[in-house]
């Protein structure tokens, strides 16, 4: 790698202030520090520093997302071929999905990083690694048939309004990726919801075999409320839903990365073992979700409420949200006690939105954004309690 190092050292001066490409200084610096950990040494404070940095942290999260991504590619192909009455083999399914999903990823990264690089240059900052994760999360929470221009617009909205106006990575209030999803959800409600968007080709009006429905488990479950369910039993609803094994493995329609709970668990294992994702939030969310599911069971006013609590973990984006999105260290609660409260509330509220609010079959996106909004408040009370506790501990001055 010596020649590469030499080459970089040679072209470096032209990116410095006054150089030919001074306007690309941040971009150059970003690429250089990506290729080589810089030779900067400590100048004050601790002389030695841990070898963890934000690049490592973010790349571990991206790595944890890979199982979901790979499964999502396969699943896209699988449902596409199923909808037109055929069946692809493993590679055909995967290749189809790859061709559909890769452009979404590319658009998300190009738009997002483009904005990040520009802003870093204007602010004369180093480029932040935060978007490495956001750029991967955005495609994974989109329906597969989302138009690319929509992805571009949503990404730009998320990065500019969601992050840069607050000062960049670390300063944002909401999870940028979810903001992109919310943007699409509210700006293009007609194009991008309903039963068709989840399966590649359906919105384009490709021939669909009879009796095929692209409905996600959540939209089926939502049929278990209101008048439609007046005479339905809990058993009937359960029989309409895909079976538990399929929902766990992910053989159901849904957003690209959210369907396979197995892949999500693999990602969770990586995040927990490396200590990079907060196990407290993950566990607390799961407990909150199960608790509210159980309370619904006790009330059992309609078939949806009779569903076993663990169905809520398997349906929709709950697992993906709890593992990858609610745990975003910047927008979640920052104190350990706060993380428990934040997670439990998130789990409870998701089930409430799903079961009691007919307007939204899924509550994960909005509830995470809502909890992001409340996270500073939760932390405020946790820290205030700490201040009081420490004051009490101090013995009176004799």
């Amino acid at each position, binding site marked *: 790698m010596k020649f590469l190092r030499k080459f970089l050292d040679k072209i470096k001066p032209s990116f410095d202030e006054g150089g030919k490409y001074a306007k690309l200084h941040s971009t150059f610096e970003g690429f250089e520090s990506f290729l*080589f950990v810089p030779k900067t040494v400590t100048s004050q404070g601790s002389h030695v520093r841990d*070898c963890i940095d934000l690049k490592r942290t973010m790349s571990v999260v991206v790595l944890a997302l890979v199982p979901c991504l790979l499964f999502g590619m396969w699943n896209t192909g699988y449902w596409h071929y199923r909808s037109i009455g055929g069946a692809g083999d493993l590679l055909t399914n995967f290749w189809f999905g790859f061709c559909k999903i890769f452009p979404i990823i590319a658009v998300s990264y190009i738009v997002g990083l483009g904005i990040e690089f520009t802003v870093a240059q204007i602010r004369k900052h180093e480029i932040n690694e935060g978007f490495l994760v956001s750029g991967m999360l955005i495609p994974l929470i989109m329906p597969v048939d989302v138009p690319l221009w929509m992805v571009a617009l949503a990404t730009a909205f998320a990065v500019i309004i969601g992050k840069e106006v607050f000062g960049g990575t670390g300063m944002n209030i909401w999870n940028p990726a979810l903001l992109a999803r919310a943007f699409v959800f509210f700006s293009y409600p007609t194009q991008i919801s309903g039963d068709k968007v989840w399966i590649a080709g359906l919105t384009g009006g490709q021939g669909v075999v009879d009796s095929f429905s692209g409905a996600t488990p959540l939209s089926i479950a939502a049929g278990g409320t209101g008048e439609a369910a007046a005479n339905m039993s809990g058993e009937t609803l359960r029989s309409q839903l895909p079976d538990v094994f399929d929902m766990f493995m992910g053989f159901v329609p849904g957003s690209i990365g959210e369907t396979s709970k197995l892949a999500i668990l693999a990602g969770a294992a990586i995040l927990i073992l490396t200590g990079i994702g907060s196990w407290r939030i993950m566990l607390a969310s799961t407990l909150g979700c199960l608790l509210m599911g159980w309370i619904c069971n006790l009330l059992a006013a309609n078939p949806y409420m009779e569903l076993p609590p663990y169905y809520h973990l398997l349906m929709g984006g709950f697992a993906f949200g709890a593992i990858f999105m609610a745990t975003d260290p910047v927008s979640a609660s920052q104190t350990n006690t706060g993380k428990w409260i934040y997670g439990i509330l998130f789990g409870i509220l998701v089930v409430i939105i799903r079961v009691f609010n007919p307007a939204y079959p899924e509550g994960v996106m909005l509830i995470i954004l809502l909890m992001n909004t409340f996270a500073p408040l939760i932390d405020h009370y946790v820290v205030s309690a700490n201040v009081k506790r420490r004051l009490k501990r101090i013995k009176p001055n004799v």
Partner: protein
Amino acid sequence: MSRVVKLRKGLNIKMQGSAEKVLARMPMAAKYAVKPSDFKGITPRLCVKQGDVVKAGTPVFEDKNNPAVKFASPVSGMVDEINRGDRRKLLEIVIKPDAEQEYEKYKITDELLKNREQIIQLMLDAGLWSMVIQRPYGIIANPNAKPKAIFVSGFDTAPLLLDIDFLLTGQEEFFQKGIDILAKLTDGKVHLGLSADDYASKLNKIKNAEINIFSGKHPAGNVGVQIHHIDPIGKGDVVWTLDAQHVVSLGRFFATGVYNSDRIVALCGSRVLRPQYLHVVSGASITAYADRIDHSGNVRYISGNVLTGVSIGKDGYTGFYANRISVIPEGDHSEFLGWAMPRLQKFSASKSYFSWLTPAKNYKLDTNLNGGERAFVVSGQYEKVLPMDIYPVYLLKAILAENIDKMEQLGIYELIEEDLALCEYVCTSKIEIQTILRQGIELMIKEMN
């Protein structure tokens, strides 16, 4: 009865080059220096000029704001150089030692030892007061204040572990004497912190002090952590702390009437050929140990430990409070895709690397920053290495916002740089935590006076 405080949080940084328990007596160094920058919270004013002859114990400078506080020469000899930096800031007073050492002598009577004020006066006159550090703020204590307690840590947990019990071998009597003196300076207690791993410590037999036992990783040996768990500092409280070896010097002074600033430092780190304990006089030039160090390539010479010490260069001087000279390689080389590599040869507190799988292994750490400075992103990271009921990120943000009330509430009285040094070590965003904390402390001093 002593109590055991179990601390679950913390981190032991596994480094190569711990000192072997062998004590080498060093000959007189060519030069000695007193560095005003070692002493926090004072404004130095010179008492000597170049060419003056001084004895060991003669004051070479004093605090402009409180001239009673004097700082003594460690050796007898001639003032060789007075080095100044930017804006004529006093950096070092360099003294060339005589072959035969002469000491300032003081008469210690039993009558004197009964009177707190006279003890303090004598400590001030003899230049011993600089041993007494005040919490909050970690500055030279105000001799007119009355501390609610005095704390001494009898063990060390910082990287490249130091065996204080070994350091104090043969000095137990002086240590006891020092503790007895300290007990007269406070109406409260003198607390001695000891490690649970070392029940055999000679210090267990010390009387006149309350012994508190701590178990846990670094920073359990930091006196700040011990204060936090035993007798926390609130607004208006004053606590004094002393280094264990200074307690010996103090005891020796009151036993013999002579301030002898001999101390033992560990010469350690991966660039030291034979890491050992050295018997030296405080302020000695490290050129005296040049043959014990591998100087090839770029090397960092640190007076103190690698977390909190001061870089002193190849021919610098041992600091007044330093118990170690740590010598490690500089990390001024770039590493291809370093952040993506397994880095099996590197130590990390993060489990995204693999050093947690080999807990017994020691690593060669260098001074590379290992990344670029970022905003606060990762949460919960500092809390894992700080065994105190304090939220460091909130405190640091309060300091950056210069919010005095918040700084007070969030625990600035209880912390000095060394207590947050590990937070700085583990920080993913490479935030200069110790520097920020010192800014906050300085702001507090300014605002509270």
